[in-house]
């Protein structure tokens, strides 16, 4: 049982660095919450505050309505997995996993069964007598998971636990972590800068930048309804394309987004939202996958440009696309053959457009 609440939490370091600014966050019991952002955005600091490894400079941090601002880590019921694993090099795998239980003075027999149990689940039973230096990266990662798991903590914290693993292992461990969450029925807080990890694992994602929360929502919310250009750019591969232009609302002809030759007729749903704002200069966002070959769809949906580069990525291909001197990237089917230097026309999925205020970057739609 653990619900974690941040109320107006600030974190300032001794050197004056303001790592976290006015954080308000309610982490529900048994939720899988992912803190997502670029390095230096304050996500690890937030995690360390939950663990008690960093002090809260101002505001309240509550575990189930109990103020824990000044509770040292060993008195909070949390377990943590680190990016570098942080295994104790002088202890065997067994002792590494057992250490947390030993420190809490669990009976010897119980330690034995719980460690063996965790080791069996993680398939590292045969490694219990080895030392960390004799293990591969993936095995060390499992030991680190075991060390956290065996304590059966109220809160399970993970600080970029997969970023030292190679790509294939990372994907299989992702699945295992998700399974672990279902088995353990406890609150998980997971820090990553990898959007794919965040989207696959999270119940909710918190996107942070420069110590400020940008958006909190389900993976679907964050991806489909980004609140600003930062969130929109941070998720998606290749990243979302931006085109600056103006909104024109000629009588009877519908609301249009115009930039040079490009004229996109906005669907009524989007147009309705724009009527509330008198903004005319906007930034249009088109996700790389939201285009199609121009055969279908008439005028008002077509974007034209010259192919700059063709990057096959196996399942499909990325087209680098020159549009008024800006490079846009679109993801298209690999069946289509395009050559560099060729003029292409792509039809845009108008229902999936994003519109942002050109100056503030805030979404005009959500």
């Amino acid at each position, binding site marked *: 049982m653990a619900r974690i609440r941040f109320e107006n939490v600030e974190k300032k370091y001794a050197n004056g660095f303001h790592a976290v600014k006015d954080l308000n966050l309610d982490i529900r019991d048994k939720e899988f919450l992912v803190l997502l952002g670029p390095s230096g955005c304050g996500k690890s600091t937030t995690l360390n505050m939950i*663990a008690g490894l960093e002090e809260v400079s101002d505001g309240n941090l509550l575990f189930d309505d109990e103020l824990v601002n000044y509770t040292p880590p*060993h008195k909070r019921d949390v377990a943590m997995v680190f990016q*570098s694993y*942080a295994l*104790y*090099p*002088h202890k065997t795998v067994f002792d590494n996993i057992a250490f*947390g239980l030993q*420190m809490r003075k669990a009976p010897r027999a119980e330690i034995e069964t719980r460690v063996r149990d965790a080791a069996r689940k993680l398939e590292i039973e045969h490694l219990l007598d080895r030392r960390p230096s004799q293990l591969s990266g993936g095995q060390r990662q499992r030991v680190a998971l075991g060390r956290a798991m065996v304590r059966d903590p109220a809160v399970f914290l993970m600080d970029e636990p997969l970023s030292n693993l190679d790509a294939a292992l990372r994907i299989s461990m992702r699945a295992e972590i998700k399974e672990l969450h279902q088995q353990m029925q406890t609150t998980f807080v997971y820090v990553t800068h990898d959007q794919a990890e965040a989207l696959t694992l999270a119940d909710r994602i918190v996107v942070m930048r420069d110590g400020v929360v940008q958006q909190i929502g389900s993976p679907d919310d964050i991806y489909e309804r980004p609140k600003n250009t930062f969130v929109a750019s941070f998720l998606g591969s290749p990243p979302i394309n931006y085109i600056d232009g103006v909104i024109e609302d000629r009588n009877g002809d519908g609301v249009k987004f115009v930039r040079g030759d490009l004229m996109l007729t906005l669907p009524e749903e989007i147009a309705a939202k724009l009527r509330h704002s008198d903004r005319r200069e906007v930034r249009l966002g088109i996700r790389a996958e939201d285009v199609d070959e121009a055969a279908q769809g008439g005028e008002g949906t077509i974007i034209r440009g010259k192919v700059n580069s063709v990057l096959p990525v196996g399942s499909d291909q990325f087209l680098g696309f020159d549009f008024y001197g800006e490079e846009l990237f679109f993801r298209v089917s690999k069946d289509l053959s395009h050559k560099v230097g060729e003029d292409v026309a792509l039809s845009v999925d108008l229902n999936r457009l994003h519109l942002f205020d050109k100056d503030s970057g805030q979404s005009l739609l959500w």
Partner: protein
Amino acid sequence: MTDVSQTRTGGIDYRRRQRLSRIAHSLVILAGAIVLTIYVIAPVTWLVSSSFQTEAEIVSVPPHWIPDEPTLQNFEAIFTAQEEEEITYETRSGQDPAAGGFIPSTAKNLLPAMWNSFIVATLVVILNLLVGVPAAYALAKIRFWGRDGSVYFILITRVIPDIALVVPFFLVIRKLGMLDSIFSLVLTYLAVTVPFSVFILLQYFEGLPDELDKAARVDGCSRFQALVRVFLPLSLPSLVAVVLFTFLTSWNEFLLALMFTQTEASQTLPILLAAFTSDFTISFSFINAAGVLAIVPPVIVAVIFERYIVSGLTAGAVKG
């Protein structure tokens, strides 16, 4: 094949030349190593060798590196030195120095002085660890206000020469009523060695990943437990360095010991050894035997602890 025919006709055998230069290179290094080894070993060899010689043999020309008639009389003299009749210039001047067999007037103090040295050095080692380890851990792993300033301050105290500290030390020690007590030495040696110990340990602790500290604390350790249960077992090499450094510094220290000690109650070995040279007569064989005894304990300490200087103990803590 072409280059072989070329060397036959052209006359310059590059391969041979390269081989010769490699041999020459090795020879130069070997010669340098031999010179250096002799430079280091010779004085100690002479010390040990001459401690088994009679006074007559020591002063013979040319010197004997290997004693003609090895004798234990010098060591016997040290271990059997008694409070005999008072030794004065008159009783001494009648003896024949070349025959050996006479010992300095303070010879009986030698073993007590050695004991003093040992106690002082051991206490300094223990206290250094007790003070230095927690200090270094705090400086390495806790980001508190004034941390950097503290580190610089500790380092600065290390660069002040001992001689500049003698007078203030003396005043403090006198005020504390510790003159002519081994505790005056323990206290002042701590002041001299602790900064360096902290510095060694600080470097080492900073090299251990922060995440180990965090992991230990999340696993249920207090700060102190994290230090004792995780950091200390991983820091053996640096702890050994501190033990050796502080033991040897205390064992060899001369200046402060000269200032604060007066009688055999507190005199340490270096002071007593130095005093032998200003006795009525100088017995080289006796002094050399005492010198051999003086290097035995540090050598034992070094041999015991050297094996714990193992590298790679932290391998596997973090990825890499």
